[in-house]
Structure formats: structure tokens, C-alpha cells
């Protein structure tokens, strides 16, 4: 693996914006192997060459300030006042050509349909278990399997209606799924906020590129939630929908308020709701009002103290009974976490094959199951090359990155694995692709992933775009916001791989 920096700049400018741009084995989103900008990055590349860093820095400050004023922040509790920090956003867009996006769309559509069939199956007849495609004990030993859901019929058999899957691009340029988030995926408000900022910073470039719009996300989400309403059975026309938030101390609280506002639905906390005779009501100034659909951003464990964790103050006593009686729909359903367990992930290609008879359109990352003796032995011998993850964790916690770890850390994980092999999996260390970012006054390459948001209510909606998460520290492979990650806007082009500006230039030269 030879690392080099981009040296052959095709510009006489003395103040190059790329003084320290790292290129090596990792796939670079902007430059190809010949260090030439890819077609769909040409227009951005030219803009960067002509842009003075001070201008961009000013735009960055203005963007940061606008995030701060809008309160798009998370709270760091290191003193009694609680410091509020913004989630860092990077101003350079990540650009995806239309044809690549279509493949992502097909792949994720296939995946969410298969995972929903899987969830229905394991909570009912369990054909896939009887046919020994997925091991029974893997399902039943999963912390997120809810036996309360056994045999329960839910509207349209849709378990996961809101999903965010994390994609990474491998060194050969193909996308692979790194994990699915089938419980309460977050981040979609940052996707929309980033877009708003970029339209302000690069209005001309944005228009010239022909970027697919994403602003209809909230509308699509509302349509999805409406489609799940049990309201026809209760004889009222307009379903009453509420977003259930854990409250203002949750790090995604801004997103909850934002989505509720954009959809025009009530934002409720557990204490606003009550259940009487298996019907959910919210407490309003004009008395009690019935609720039909709850878009819940509260984890299963905390939803109903009578059914799950009794110490939860965030939930609503009796909610599960109302759900079981079919008087209220929860989106996502309870117990979906069993399908995004990191060990279950290894079986997703077989799950797709089993239910749809198709090969997965987007591949998985090779995953070692530590419950299998051979695979465990291999992992224990090669821990310095692998990434080990706890199956139930998210947010970049409970993770060992072999190549960057100390002998002591590896030893600690070895003990953890031997004690509870079911709780861990291992994967090769993936050299995530890099995209240009504007950091410290220069354009630098940083590792990125991509989280598109998928909506499912019988048909599948993907808003063309997603959250591109960035590992802001040089060399870091961890993109999670809790671990020093940031995000940037994702531009999905309406055309194959050319921007509008290029197309116009081509038309002009043809005249």
C-alpha cells in the first residue's frame, strides 16, 4: 500500500487548494486512479480551483452559526450548564451519478422487502427457521427478539417502515451494505439541513449540476405513516398521528421537533399519552384526543413500563395492549431489532435468496460469526487485521479496530469474545472510500459512508440522497457523530454521470 499525495495539479495557481490531498488504495470519490477528476466531479473540481479559501471559510462560519442559531446542536454535559455543540458539517458535496443511485435504490428496495418478510415469518410460522436457513438459536438469543410479538398481526404485515441502511464504497468502487438500522434510525434532519445550507453556499453550482430534490421527505414520511393507520376499522376518516419522543434531553430531539413540524403532526412525550380501555389518547387543552398512529423514536425497551422495562419514565403504561388490540399502529413495529443484529446481518443475503429467489443486488461485507468454531479461531489469530463489533451496540461503541489497536485492547476483546461469542462479530477492516472535504483552509480527503433513508408502506420510497457521514480526523475510519464524525450533503444527479453544465458545454460544442 503506497500512499502518495496529489502532486500533478493541472493548474498554474500557486495557492493550490489541494496542498495535502491523500490518494492511495482507498477509492477516491473525486479523483480516479490516474488522479484525474471523475466526470461527475469535474464542475465541482473547477469551482474549487477558482475559489478562494477565505470565501469558503466565511461560508463555513456562516453555516456553523446558522446551525447554532437554529439549535441544531447536541449537548455535552461536562459542566453544570451543559455546552451545546453543533454537529460539524462539511461544505463540499458528495456527488453520486444517477446510474449508481438507481442500483442503490434497487438494492435497498430488495433488502427492505426481504427483511420485512423475514420479520413476519419469525414472529409467525418460522419457515426460515424450520428450513435451517437461519439458525433458530441465533434468533431466540437476540436481545431484540420480542416474544410478545409472536403471532401478533400488524397492519399490512409491515414491520419496518422507516429504515436507514449504512453503505460503504470498497476500494474497487462497488457499494456494500455495512449495516441496517431497523429500529429508530436518525440523521434524516441533517440530510435536509445540509441541503438547505449548500443551496445557499453554491447556488449556481447546485443548479448547474441537476441535483435530484429531497425536500419531499417529510411528505413521503407522512404518507407512509397514514398508510399504516388502523383508522378505517374505527370509522373515522383522518388518522391522528403523533411522533413520540423521549424528550428534550435526547440527542436527536432537534430531529423529532423538525419532523413533527414538517409533517404537521403532534410531537408527544410519554407523559402526554394515556391508555384507557386499550385506546391511546393524548391529553390536550380541549380534553382527551384519540391517537391512531405513533411514529415512535423511543426504543422498544422504554415503550411500555407494564410490558418492557418497568423503570421507564419515557413510555406509556398500557401501550402494548392497545397495540395488540389493533387500536394503534407503531412505526416501526416492536421487535424489529432482531433483523439488524450484527450477527443476523451475515444471513441477510440468504434471507433475500430465501424469500425473493434473487441474489442480493448490493453485497454484504464478509462477516465472521464467532459462534462458529473455525471462524472464531481465525478471528482470534488475526485480530490485528480485523474489526470486532459488539452485536447489540451502535454509534461506534463497543468496537475494536484491529490495525489501530494496542496489544492490550486486543487481549481485552479476546477475553470478551471467549466469554460471550454470540455477542460479537468480526469483519475485515474496510478501507472506506474518501471524499474531498474542506478542512483548515484546504481541500483534504476523508473517509465517508452513506446512509440513505428508505420508507416502506407497501411500496418503497427512497428520497434520492442521504446522509454522507465523514470521519473528520485524518486516517480515522469511524464516521459516527459520537466519535468525532461530521456530515455533508449528498447530491444524486438526475443524469447518468455528467452535470448539467457539462451537458450544456457538450451541446454548445456540437453546434
Amino acid at each position, binding site marked *: 500500500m503506497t500512499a502518495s499525495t496529489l502532486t500533478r495539479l493541472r493548474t498554474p495557481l500557486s495557492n493550490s487548494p489541494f496542498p495535502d490531498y491523500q490518494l492511495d488504495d482507498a477509492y477516491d470519490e473525486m479523483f480516479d486512479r490516474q488522479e484525474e477528476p471523475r466526470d461527475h466531479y469535474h464542475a465541482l473540481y473547477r469551482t474549487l480551483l477558482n475559489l478562494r479559501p477565505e470565501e469558503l471559510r466565511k461560508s463555513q462560519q456562516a453555516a456553523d452559526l446558522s446551525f*447554532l*442559531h*437554529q*439549535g441544531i446542536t447536541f449537548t455535552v454535559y461536562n459542566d453544570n*450548564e451543559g455546552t451545546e455543540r453543533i454537529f460539524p458539517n462539511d461544505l463540499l458535496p458528495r456527488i453520486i451519478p444517477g446510474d449508481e443511485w438507481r442500483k442503490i435504490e434497487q438494492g435497498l428496495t430488495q433488502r427492505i422487502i426481504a427483511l420485512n418478510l423475514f420479520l413476519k415469518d419469525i414472529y409467525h410460522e418460522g419457515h426460515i427457521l424450520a428450513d435451517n436457513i437461519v439458525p433458530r438459536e441465533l434468533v431466540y438469543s437476540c436481545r431484540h427478539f420480542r416474544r410478545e410479538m409472536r403471532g401478533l398481526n400488524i397492519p399490512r404485515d409491515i414491520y419496518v417502515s422507516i429504515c436507514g441502511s449504512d453503505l460503504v464504497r470498497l476500494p474497487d468502487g462497488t457499494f456494500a451494505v455495512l449495516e441496517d438500522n431497523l429500529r429508530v434510525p436518525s440523521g434524516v434532519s441533517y440530510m435536509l439541513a445540509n441541503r438547505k445550507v449548500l443551496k445557499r453556499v453554491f447556488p449556481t453550482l447546485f443548479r448547474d449540476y441537476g441535483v435530484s430534490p429531497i425536500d419531499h421527505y417529510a411528505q413521503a414520511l407522512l404518507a407512509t405513516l397514514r398508510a399504516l393507520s388502523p383508522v378505517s376499522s374505527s370509522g373515522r376518516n383522518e388518522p391522528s398521528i403523533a411522533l413520540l419522543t423521549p*424528550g*428534550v434531553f435526547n440527542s436527536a430531539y432537534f430531529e423529532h*421537533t*423538525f419532523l*413533527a*413540524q414538517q409533517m404537521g403532526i*403532534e*410531537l*408527544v*412525550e410519554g*407523559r*402526554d399519552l*394515556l391508555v*384507557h380501555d386499550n385506546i391511546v389518547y*393524548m*391529553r*390536550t*387543552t*380541549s*380534553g*382527551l384526543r384519540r391517537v391512531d398512529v405513533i411514529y415512535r423514536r423511543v426504543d422498544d425497551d422504554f415503550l411500555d413500563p407494564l410490558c418492557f422495562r418497568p423503570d421507564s419514565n419515557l413510555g406509556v403504561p398500557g401501550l402494548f395492549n392497545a397495540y395488540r388490540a389493533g387500536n394503534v399502529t407503531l412505526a416501526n413495529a416492536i421487535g424489529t431489532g432482531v433483523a439488524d443484529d450484527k450477527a443476523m446481518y451475515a444471513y441477510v443475503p440468504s434471507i433475500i435468496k430465501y424469500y425473493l429467489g434473487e441474489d442480493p443486488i448490493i453485497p454484504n461485507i464478509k462477516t465472521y460469526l464467532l459462534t462458529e468454531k473455525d471462524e472464531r479461531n481465525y478471528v482470534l489469530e488475526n485480530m490485528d487485521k480485523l474489526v470486532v463489533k459488539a452485536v447489540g451496540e451502535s454509534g461506534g461503541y463497543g468496537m475494536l479496530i484491529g490495525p489501530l489497536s494496542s496489544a492490550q485492547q486486543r487481549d481485552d476483546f479476546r477475553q470478551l469474545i471467549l466469554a460471550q461469542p454470540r455477542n460479537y462479530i468480526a469483519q475485515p477492516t474496510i478501507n472506506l472510500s474518501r471524499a474531498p472535504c474542506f478542512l483548515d483552509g484546504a481541500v483534504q480527503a476523508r473517509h465517508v459512508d452513506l446512509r440513505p433513508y428508505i420508507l416502506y408502506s407497501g411500496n418503497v420510497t427512497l428520497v434520492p440522497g442521504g446522509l454522507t457521514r465523514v470521519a473528520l480526523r485524518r486516517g480515522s475510519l469511524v464516521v459516527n457523530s459520537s466519535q468525532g464524525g461530521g456530515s455533508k450533503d449528498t447530491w444524486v444527479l438526475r443524469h447518468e454521470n455528467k452535470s448539467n453544465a457539462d451537458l450544456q458545454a457538450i451541446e454548445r460544442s456540437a453546434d
Partner: protein
Amino acid sequence: MLSRVAESLYWMSRYLERAEHTARLIDVDLQLRLDQSMESSTGRWLRLIEALRVPALLAGDVDALSLAHTLTFNRTNPSSIVSCVAAARENLRHVREQSSSEMWEQLNRLYLQMIGTPPEDSWILQSHAFFRAVQDGAHLFQGIADSTMAHGEGWHYIQLGRFVERTDVLAALIGAHFSRLAHPANQPVEGAGYLEWVGLLKCCAAFEAYCKAYSAELRPIRVAEFLLLNSEFPHSIRFSVESVHSALGRIGEITERKVAQPVRLAGRLRAALSFSQIEEIMAEGAHLYMENIRSQCVHVHSAIQQIYFDYPVETALAS
């Protein structure tokens, strides 16, 4: 509208009103100090402490300037200006999807401005600019709320909170003034005392408006009449109570609640103020009258609490 949301809007508005009021009181006091002897400013300071209901523990023997600092910046004092702005913001943050983004951004900006400049020893020199910023920030917020938010139920809770708080703090201020400062009611005030009465009017942002109505000749009975019974000036008791009453009337219509307790209590107070004569009030004692208004204000607040925010579920299910 969710009860929790209504309650948060109501309290947000009360806290912001209190911050504005406290800022104006301290600002006026510090300005008047420049023209006065130590003695007379101490007298006014005591009235101010009473008007702001500063706990005796805090007031103690501390000198006026460090107490002013505490009343302004101290986060452990829940009534300090910075605490009130923070509490207002926290309440709005809980319901920000119910307000307009412009409102949130303005209140958030005010908050960041308040906590952004750590006070130094010499803060008193720039204090006027600081107190001005609080008042301007609160006015701007009200203007933004009026022009960007639908004037529906939520907006009426904001109005309600603002004027319930205003009635209460004005009654406390006027009561403290009249109980501690004796002057023949119908004689023009002259000499050293003049500034005290100017101070009272300025604390209610009412000096200019008073002069337009009665000229700059100050008589206690006229000051009292203006601050209590004027129906047009927004910092008079009567104006505030009328605003409370009409907000409650609208809320009653919108929510279609059959219970009329809050609007009845506010209406009774409104009627008393509409048909009272200032001579009667002065004969009875203005400070006693103010105490009566404050206790009625508490009743109105409890009624709002019981009917709209925290009603028993059993009665709601029964109706």
C-alpha cells in the same frame, strides 16, 4: 393542543416577561443612582427588592451593586435575568415545533447573547447596553411572534402568560412603591421625591405616556390612576387584565370547554378595574388594593392550571 405544549408556551412567555421587567427595574435604578444621594437611592433599592420579591436570604447585607449582579447573572438564582431567559428558552425548546422557526431563533439568539459575555467587575459601566439588549430582545420576540405565528390557541397562551405575569409584577411594584413612599395624593411632587415618582413611571415604561396624558406634573393620584386604570397603555394593570380576560375568552371558544372558571375569575377582576374610581382605591390604600389584585391573579393562574394543563383524567373521560 397538547396540555404540555400549552403549559410550556404559557411559562415561556411568563419567564420572558419577568426577564424584561427585572431588566427594566435594575436599569432604571442604576440610571437614577447617578443623580441621587446615597440615602435616597438606598430607599428606592429597598422598594425594588420588595417589588422583585428577592428572598431575604439573598438581600441580606450585600451591597446594591453585587446584588444587582446576582439579580442579573446568577444562574443559581431562578429569578435572575439570565435564568429567566434560559428558562424561557428551555420551555420554547420543548415545544419549538409549535412556534415559528423565527421565534425560536430570536429567543435562542437572545440566550446566546446573554451567556456569551461573561460579566466582569466593570460590567456596571456597560450595564445599560446589556439591560437594553434584554428589553429589545424581548420586544423583538413579541413582534416576531405576532407576525410569524398563527394567532390561534398557542399564540393566546403566549399572550396569557405575558399578561398574567405583567399584572402580577406591576401590582408588586406599584404596591411596594405606595406602601413605602408617603406623599399627599393630590399634590404635585417636587424636590428630591420627584425622581422617585419618575422612577416608578419609568419602571413601567410609562413616563412618556403619562406626560402625554397629564403633563410632566406628577401627582401620586394621577400616577396611580394611570398605572392602574388606564385602558390604553399596555403596561397598566387594567390593560393587562383585559388582555388576560380576552385571551381566556378566545381559548375557551377554541377548546370548547364547558367550564368557565378561569374566564369568570378574570372577568370579575376586569369588571372591578373597569368600574373603580381612583379616589376610592386611594382611600382604601393603593398597596392593599394591589395585594388584592395579586391574590386574584393567583386564583386565575390556578384555574388555568386546573382546567387546561393538569386536569384529572377521570373527569376528562366522563365528559
